[in-house]
C-alpha cells in the first residue's frame, strides 16, 4: 500500500509540533531529575496549574502573552517554595521519600484545582486564529508558533546552561554535588533554582498547550506520563536526549496514526519504552558506555 506524500508531510509537521511541546515539558522534568535525582511526580500538576494561571490572568488582562509570562513566573515561584518546604529537607534520603513527597504534592495540587476551578474544562483563547493551507488541511498558525516558541525556550535553556554562570553551577552540581559545594557553589539554592525553572517550563507548556485542549484538573496526567517515557528513552537526566526522544516518539505516534486511530497510536510510545528498557536501559540517545 502506497502512502501519499501529502499525508507523510502533514504527519511529520504534526509530530514535530507535538514533539516540541513534549520536549518543553520533558526538559523541565529531566533537568530536575538530572541535578537532584528527584523523579517529580508533580510535574504534570505544575503543567496544569500553569494552564489555570493562564486562564485566570487572561480573563483578568485579556493579554495572552502577559498570561504566559505571569503563569510561568508564578508557578516557578511556587515550585521554588515547594522545593524548599518539601524536598530540601529530604536531600540525601532514599529516593522513595522524594517520590512519595512529589506524589503527595501532585494529589494536593490536583484536588486544589478541582476544588477551585471545578470539573468543567476551561478554554484559553489563542492569541491569533489564522490558518494556512497544508495540502488538503487548514493548519493553524498557532500550532507552528508553539513549536517555535518551545524550540526557542529550549534553545534559551541550552545557551543558559552552556554559558551562564548559574548554568555552569548547574552542570557542575549535576556531575559532583559534593565537590560543587566545596567550590563555593550554594548547592541547596541551585536545587531550588532548578526546580523553579522546571516548574516554570511546565507552566509555560501548560499555557501554550491550553488553547489546543480544554484546561482541566487532570490535563497534566497524559503529558507527564509521556514526558516520563521520553525521559527514560532519552536517557535519565540527559537534556539533549530528552529533546531527541520527544521528537522521535511524537513522530512515531504521528506516523502510526496514519494506519490506526490516534488513541491507539499512543501504544507506540509504550512499545518504545519497553524495548528501550529491555535492550538499552541507559537510553537511546546517550553514547554507548565503554
Amino acid at each position, binding site marked *: 500500500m502506497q502512502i501519499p506524500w501529502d499525508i507523510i508531510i502533514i504527519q511529520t509537521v504534526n509530530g514535530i509540533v507535538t514533539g516540541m511541546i513534549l520536549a518543553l515539558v520533558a526538559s523541565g522534568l529531566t533537568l530536575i531529575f538530572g541535578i537532584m535525582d528527584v523523579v517529580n511526580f508533580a510535574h504534570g500538576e505544575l503543567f496544569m496549574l500553569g494552564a489555570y494561571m493562564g486562564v485566570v490572568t487572561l480573563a483578568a488582562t485579556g493579554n495572552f502573552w502577559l498570561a504566559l509570562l505571569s503563569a510561568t513566573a508564578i508557578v516557578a515561584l511556587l515550585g521554588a517554595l515547594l522545593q524548599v518546604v518539601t524536598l530540601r529537607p529530604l536531600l540525601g534520603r532514599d529516593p522513595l521519600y522524594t517520590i512519595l513527597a512529589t506524589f503527595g504534592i501532585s494529589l494536593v495540587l490536583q484536588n486544589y484545582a478541582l476544588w477551585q476551578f471545578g470539573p468543567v474544562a476551561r478554554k484559553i483563547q489563542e492569541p491569533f486564529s489564522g490558518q494556512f493551507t497544508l495540502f488538503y488541511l487548514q493548519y493553524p498558525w498557532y500550532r507552528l508558533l508553539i513549536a517555535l516558541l518551545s524550540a526557542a525556550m529550549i534553545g534559551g535553556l541550552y545557551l543558559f546552561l552552556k554559558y551562564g554562570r548559574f548554568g*555552569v553551577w548547574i*552542570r557542575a552540581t549535576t556531575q559532583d554535588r559534593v565537590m560543587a559545594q*566545596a567550590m*563555593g557553589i550554594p548547592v541547596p539554592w541551585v536545587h531550588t533554582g532548578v526546580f523553579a525553572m522546571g516548574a516554570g517550563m511546565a507552566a509555560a507548556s501548560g499555557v501554550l498547550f491550553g488553547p489546543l485542549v480544554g484546561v482541566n484538573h487532570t490535563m497534566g496526567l497524559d503529558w507527564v506520563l509521556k514526558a516520563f517515557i521520553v525521559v527514560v528513552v532519552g536517557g535519565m537526566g540527559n537534556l539533549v536526549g530528552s529533546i531527541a526522544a520527544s521528537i522521535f516518539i511524537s513522530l512515531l505516534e504521528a506516523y502510526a496514526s496514519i494506519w490506526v486511530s490516534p488513541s491507539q497510536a499512543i501504544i507506540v510510545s509504550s512499545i518504545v519504552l519497553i524495548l528501550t528498557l529491555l535492550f538499552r536501559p541507559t537510553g537511546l540517545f546517550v553514547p554507548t558506555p565503554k
Partner: protein
Amino acid sequence: MSSPSPAPEPLIVVEGVHTYYGKSHILNGVSLAVGRGEVVALVGRNGVGKSTTLKTIMGIVDASQGRVLYQGQPISGLPSHKLARIGIAYVPEDRRIFRLLTVMENLRTGLDRQGVSEARKRQLLDKLFAYFPRLAERRGQAGGTLSGGEQQMLAIGRAMMLEPKIILLDEPTEGLMPRMVSQIRQIIDVLHNDGVAILLVEQNVPLTLQASQRVYFMEKGAVQHHAAAAELSVDHPIIHKYLGV
C-alpha cells in the same frame, strides 16, 4: 625531639574532633593547628583518618564532637560552600574535577564569585596559566580528557581560583610521574610564598619534609605526635614508627 611551637597566629584550629562513618569511629579526638601562610603536613599509614580530617574541616563529613575554629570563629556545622567563600579550599585525593566541564568551566566554578571583578579574574587566570601553561593550551578541552597530571593541575588551579587563605591538599602527587611531582612541589612553594596556608596529606615523605614546616603524625584516628619538619629526615625513627618506611 622538641615539640615545635605552633604558629603564633593560628588560621585553623581543630580541637578534639570525633567523626563517625555509620558506626565506625574514624576520628578519635583529632587536634591540630595551622598558622597563617604555614605549610603543615598530616601523615600516617593508610586508614588512620587523614583524609577524613580534611573532609571534616571542609564540612563534607560532620563531626560528632569537638570543634573547628577558623580565624578564631567556630565553623563546625557550616556547609562547605560557605567555608569555600570564607577562604578554605579543598583538593581531594581523587581530584574530582568536573569531567564534562571544560578546563575553563572548571576554573569558573571557583572564579565566578560575587565581588570578583573581571580584571581580577583575568589576573588570577594569567597567574595560573603562567604556572600551568598546559592548562592554558587545553582550556577548551573537557576535564575528563586530561591526563592524570593535568587533572591534578586543574584540581589545584580550581582551588586557587577561590583565592583561599588555606588549601586542604589531599595526596596531590598520588599516581603522578616524577616530573609532575616536582611541579606539584613547586606550586606548593609558590602558594606558600603567596601567603596561602596548606594542610597537606601526602605519602611522599621526602616531598612532605621539604615542603612543610611542621608535621603531624596520626595513628588510630588521632594525632599522636608533631614535630618541626626541619628536625626530621626520611630515616628518622618517628617516620619509621608512624609511616613504617
